[in-house]
Structures are given as structure tokens and as C-alpha cells.
């Protein structure tokens, strides 16, 4: 009888390492050299399994009384009726068994822009970086700096981007066989530009509309922009599970934000990383309206309950005193003489 059966050896991630095309049944599997499929897995028996037809003419894989047996989805049985989507584990070896009538999945749309590789994205990234670098240097150049200052700034930004994308290119090459340096350079340039633009945009919006929250929390959007950049780097480097990757990066970003917020809270008692809106813009960029001095004074008076709430209880005061003793000791030298005032 002529039966075409494909036995595929898989990695734990489900990728095919070997595909054996067999025409004869039964198919013997094991470490011994008289098998049809020879396994190099010390956790399998010399004669471990056999693929054959049972009395109902179903294709089955059965255990030949091996010590480790055959498991499918963590349940071990003497034999399984073969299913093309199931993975059978023999020791550390994963097998998938399919016949020619197996229905493969539909063709996927190719979103990869194959023309956007190599020199083109690399150039676009560099142009973006240089523009952004020049713009930010110019904006913060209050002392009419020399050309060398601009060049130095550019060299450091471009140098960083090149190093960073070089690292990702090596990573890609290692896992994907393809460096894709140009793409990585484009991605890091977009990321850096995004960080810089958000910095300006958020402070501008905060000033224009008096949205102080935007000015208080500056780190968190930057963390999320960085996570997005990382996502595209990983995808370009050949990650094949975008859903899971997104979840991982989101979790990472959330942890990062959480750590930064906790640290900030412990140091300053404020969750935001800036205490107040300090970025000012020309009057033309302002949309919100002013409040009167009276209203502002009322705001100040309303602060009193908040400040009083920050006072430590008198009950735990004694504890505070004890812990502060080391501080007091070190300042003892200064306390000998009260007057240290100076003037220009």
C-alpha cells in the first residue's frame, strides 16, 4: 500500500527543523539505526514509536512501551489518532504528522514594504535626525554658538543612532540572517524625533491650554514612545509573534512608569516628575484665560489643609527624632557658630 505521510520535527516554538516524507507504513521512530526516522534525543527509546493504520483505518501513532512515552498537550497515552494540528512529544522531540489532504491556512497579506530597505530608509533617517538635531540645537542656542557646537551636537546624535542601529542589525543578522541596517536606522531616527517632538508638543499644549498635568508627567509618554520604537526594532529583527511582543513591551513600559513614579513619590511626595509647569512660550501661543488675583489667593488659602495634612503625626515624631540623630551630629560643627551669612 502506498501512503504519503509527512513527519515534521519542530522546535519548542513550533518551527520545523526537519520534514520527513515517507511513503511506507508503518513508520518506525527511535534512536536505533533500523528506524525510518532516527532521533538524536537521549530521552527517547531505541524503538520509541510507530505510525500505522489501526483496524478502523485511522492513522495512529503508538508507544512501543518506551519509558518516557508519547504526550500530546501534556497527557500521556499509549496511542493517539493522528491530527495534523497536534504536536506529539517523544522525550524532548516534538513531532507533527500530516498527510497530503491536510488543509493549510490561507495566504497572508504581505505588509513588508520590500522596497523600503537598505540605502533609502537609512538616508531618510539620517535626514530626519540631522534636521531635528539642528532644530533643537538652534532652539537652545542662546549664546549664538559657533558652527563647531552644532557639528558636535550632530555628531553625537548621529553617532548614537548609528551605534544603536548597528547593534540591532547584528541582532537581526543573528536571528534572521538579514541585517536590515537601513530599516533599523530609520526606526531609531523616527523614535528619537518622536521623543523630541513630544517634548515640545506636550509643553506647548500644557502652556497653551494651562494643562499642567502634561507638564508634570513628562517621563511616561517618553517611556511609551521608547517601547513603541523597541517594538518596531524587534519586528524588523524577525519577531514573529506581534501580539505577544506587544503585551511584553506594554508590561515593560508599565513597570518602567511605575518604578519612576514610585521613586518620584518617595523623593518628593509628588507623582509627577516635574513640580510645576516651567516651560514658557510667547504670548501668541496661549489660548487659556487668566484668573484674577483674588481667585489665585483663594487657591493659595486652599493649600493650607493639604500642607497641614503632610505634617507627620505627633505620635511618630519620636521615631523621627531618633533616626535624624546622625544628621544632627554631622552638622554639629556648623552649629557652633550661627552666623554664616555672606553677601556679594
Amino acid at each position, binding site marked *: 500500500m502506498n501512503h504519503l505521510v509527512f513527519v515534521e520535527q519542530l522546535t519548542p516554538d513550533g518551527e520545523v527543523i526537519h520534514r520527513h516524507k515517507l511513503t511506507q507504513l508503518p513508520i518506525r521512530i527511535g534512536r536505533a539505526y533500523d528506524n525510518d526516522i532516527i532521533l538524536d534525543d537521549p530521552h527517547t527509546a531505541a524503538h520509541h514509536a510507530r505510525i500505522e493504520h489501526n483496524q478502523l483505518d485511522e492513522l495512529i501513532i503508538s508507544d512501543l512501551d518506551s519509558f518516557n512515552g508519547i504526550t500530546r498537550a501534556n497527557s500521556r497515552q499509549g496511542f493517539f489518532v493522528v491530527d495534523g494540528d497536534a504536536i506529539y512529544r517523544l522525550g524532548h522531540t516534538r513531532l507533527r504528522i500530516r498527510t497530503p489532504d491536510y488543509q493549510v491556512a490561507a495566504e497572508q497579506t504581505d505588509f513588508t514594504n520590500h522596497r523600503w530597505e537598505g540605502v533609502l530608509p537609512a538616508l531618510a533617517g539620517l535626514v530626519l535626525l540631522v534636521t531635528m538635531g539642528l532644530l533643537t540645537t538652534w532652539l537652545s542656542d542662546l549664546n549664538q554658538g559657533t558652527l563647531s557646537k552644532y557639528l558636535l551636537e550632530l555628531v553625537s546624535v548621529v553617532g548614537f543612532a548609528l551605534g544603536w542601529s548597528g547593534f540591532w542589525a547584528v541582532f537581526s543578522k543573528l536571528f534572521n540572517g538579514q541585517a536590515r541596517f537601513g530599516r533599523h536606522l530609520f526606526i531609531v531616527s523616527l523614535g528619537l524625533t518622536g521623543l523630541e517632538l513630544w517634548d515640545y508638543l506636550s509643553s506647548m499644549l500644557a502652556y497653551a491650554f494651562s494643562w499642567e498635568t502634561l507638564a508634570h508627567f513628562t517621563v511616561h509618554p517618553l517611556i511609551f514612545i521608547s517601547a513603541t520604537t523597541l517594538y518596531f526594532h524587534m519586528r524588523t529583527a524577525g519577531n514573529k509573534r506581534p501580539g505577544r511582543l506587544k503585551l511584553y513591551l506594554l508590561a515593560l513600559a508599565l513597570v518602567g512608569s511605575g518604578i519612576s513614579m514610585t521613586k518620584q513619590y518617595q523623593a518628593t511626595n509628588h507623582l509627577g516628575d516635574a513640580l510645576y509647569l516651567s516651560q514658557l512660550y*510667547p504670548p501668541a501661543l496661549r489660548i487659556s484665560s487668566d484668573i484674577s488675583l483674588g481667585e489665585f489667593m483663594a487657591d493659595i488659602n486652599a493649600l493650607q489643609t493639604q500642607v497641614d495634612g503632610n505634617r507627620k503625626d505627633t505620635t511618630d515624631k519620636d521615631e523621627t527624632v531618633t533616626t535624624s540623630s546622625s544628621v544632627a551630629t554631622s552638622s554639629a560643627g556648623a552649629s557652633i557658630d550661627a552666623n554664616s551669612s555672606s553677601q556679594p
Partner: protein
Amino acid sequence: MNIPHRLLACALSLVGCISFPVLAQLSANPPIDSAPTAASAVSQPSSTAQQLYASAQQDLLQLRVLLKNGNSQSSVGSGFLIGTSNLVVTNFHVVSQIALEPDTYFGEYKDTQGKSGAIELLAVDVLHDLAIVRIARQGTGFFTVPHTLGDAQQPALESLSQGEKLYSLGNPLDLGFTISEGTYNGISARGFSDQLMFTGPVNPGMSGGPNVTADGQVAGVNVAHRRDGELVSFLVPAIYVQQLLARVSSDMTPPTDFKPIIGEQLLQHQAVMVDTLLDKPFSIKQLGPYAVPVRESDQVRCWGNSDSSSKKAYTVASINCSMEAAIFVSGDLQTGHVTMRHQYARNRKLNSLQFAQLTSKMFGSQVYSTAKSDTITPAACTESFVAHNAISLRALVCAEAYHKFKDLYDFTLITASTDDSQMSLQSMINIQGVSYANGTRLIEQFLQGIDRRTGQDKPAASNDGEAAQ
């Protein structure tokens, strides 16, 4: 062989231990190099000084504050026995740790013979930096400050005349008891209470020591010297010693907790301070087209500064006003202090977005909040765009409360003008150790003083440097 060695090591480490805070003091004191020349400039100790020291040494003491845990020394100062009583006068700052943290610190005295004993804090006067402690020994009656107990009229003290010779006693830098000669040079009115100016050496460790006239009258108590000057020292006038002694008796029970007493004294002081600051409206100065409030008085000094080098793309002129006195409460808390600053930046060559970066840099990083301080709470802030008079401002106010003193707060207000893309006025007032009502009162008055003069929108270039004096 072994034992003397160990003793030597012990003695060495002890010396190291004792002199450590003093060494720290030395290194923090740059002009110390000039000290020997200054000392030799003063003439050889006269026979008066000799006689004075001979009769005063019985009643002269060194006071030390020690850590209960480990018995190590934390601060040293001087003191003197009053009359034939067991009361010792010293500075508050010498014994402040005992007053604030009695569970951690205790005090000890040591006399010129090397005998020592415990001290007991009876009364403090934080504003004049005085304290009275009790010891288990009587004075010989050399240092007298005539006083009557209670609220009765105090006897008049002898007045001093400028140029009169005065003698300061104490134990400078924990080196040993000394007497130094200098002259009386009037009353300094820089603080809210008078201090005597003494032109003579007063070094750390002499704080709390007596200062006497040639005939042995107590003129005052050594309290401070200016680090930026030479032989510019200050004394607490004897009259405040008199007033404090009137509230203390030899057999009284000391208060269990000094914090409420200190808090009360600070509250009284801030009331006087703010009333003095606001007894007339702020004087108004001109910075470009802007009008800014300043206070110039005996207590508050202002300094102008202008940076208008023609090479720069912008100019900044500033006025800084600062109160010269502050109340010492503890090593990490000085309070009862006000500073204000105005900065006027004017654009010359920058793009208006670039100029905005400059003003942002000036406006940023001026106010901090810390949750790690044991003295003040983290800052609570409010910020807004505020319009009043003819000006619109971006304003931020942060308030902090004192953990240990009820009803006392620190305030910071910063503002930036928002009405012009080519110039910016930025103002700041920092107020330490005031009641909430007084803090807001000062802030409101200060804010009201900030204005823009219409009709002067195009100031002459010379106006930029107006603040320079």
C-alpha cells in the same frame, strides 16, 4: 609593653574624636589663615585681661552636648555662672539639640579646673539666641547681671561707649579657655533685635561665653562672627540676659517639652517681622517697562546686577533683596527669613522661540519638594495664569509646613510675565517661618506690586541696566 601602647592609641583616637567637629568647622572657614596675623595685630594681653581672667575663671564653663547613644560629643560652646547662683547663661544654639531632641542628646559642663557635671536646660530665648541651664555648683559672684524676678521694672544696666575695651571669654575650637580683647562698636540693626558689634576675635566654641568690660560688668554674650569679615563679631546685649533671668529661678522645674515654647517664640517673632516688613507699602522700582516691589530697610538689603555685554544675544538685569538676619533653631533649620528677587530679561538677537527657551530656563528649577526632610513637609503647590493691574503672570506658590512647630510655614512664590515675546520679568519671594495668614499677606502685597507701566513699552537701552548700583 602592650598596655601603654593601647593607652596611647586610645588617647589619640579620643583626640581625633573630640577635634573632629572642630576640624570640620576649620575647613569650612576659609579665612582661618588670617587668624594668626589678626591675633598678633591685637596688642599683648594687658594686665586688665590678666586680672579679669584670674577672677573670672572660677565661673567660666565649657558646655558640651553629647549623644546619649555612644556618649560622643556633638557640639561645644561656652557659658558662665550668674552671680552666686547655680544658673548658667549660654547661647540657645549651643544647647538647641537638647531642647529639640532631649531623647537623643544630653548636656555636660566642664570648668577651667577640668571638673565636669550634668546640665539641666531651664529656659530658652530663641529670638536672641539665649538659654539658661542649671548645674550642681554655685558661682563665686564674678559675673553679675542685675535683675528682678517677674514682670517688674528691670534695673538699668550700665551703658557702653564706642571704642570701649571689651573682653570675650570662652573655649574657642575646644582648644582651651581663653580671653580676648576687642572694642565695642555700637549696635547692629541688621536683625529684628539689637546685637552689639564687637571688634575682636570670637571663634566657634566661644558661643555662649561672657563678654565683660574692663571693670568686670557683663556687656553681652558671644554669639556670632562674620566669616566674610575680620574680627567682626556680635554679642547678645546683657539686657536680654536680664529679661530671660527674670523668668527663671534657681529651684524651678524645667519644662518637659521645649518645642511648643520655641514654636510660640517663633510665632511671636514672625508677627513682628511681617509687620515690620509691611508697615509701609513696598517701594516700587523700575525694570524696563515693569514695576517691581522691593523692600529696603535696616533688615533687608538689596543688590542690583546687570549683564548687558553687547556681545550677548540678550540682557538680564536683576535685583536681589535679602534679610540679613535669620533665627537659628537647629543645625538644619534656620528660619524667620525673607528673600526676594526680580530678573528682567530682554531679547536682542534671539528668535522669540529661542527667547522662550531662555525664559523657561530662568523659570525652571527654582522650587523643589522633598519628602526626606525631618524639618519641613513636602511642598504643596498651586499654579496658574494670573491677571491683575496691567500685567498677566504665570504664577506658582508652594507652601511647606514645619513638622515640629505648629502654625509655621515656608512659602515660595515665583512669577513670570506672559505679555511680551521680547522681554520677560521674573520675580521670586521666599518666606521662611511665618504663619499661614502672614505668608499669604506678604505674597499678595508682593504680587500687587508687580505691574507694567503703560506708555513705556519702548524703554531706552539705558533702562536695562537701571538695577545696577
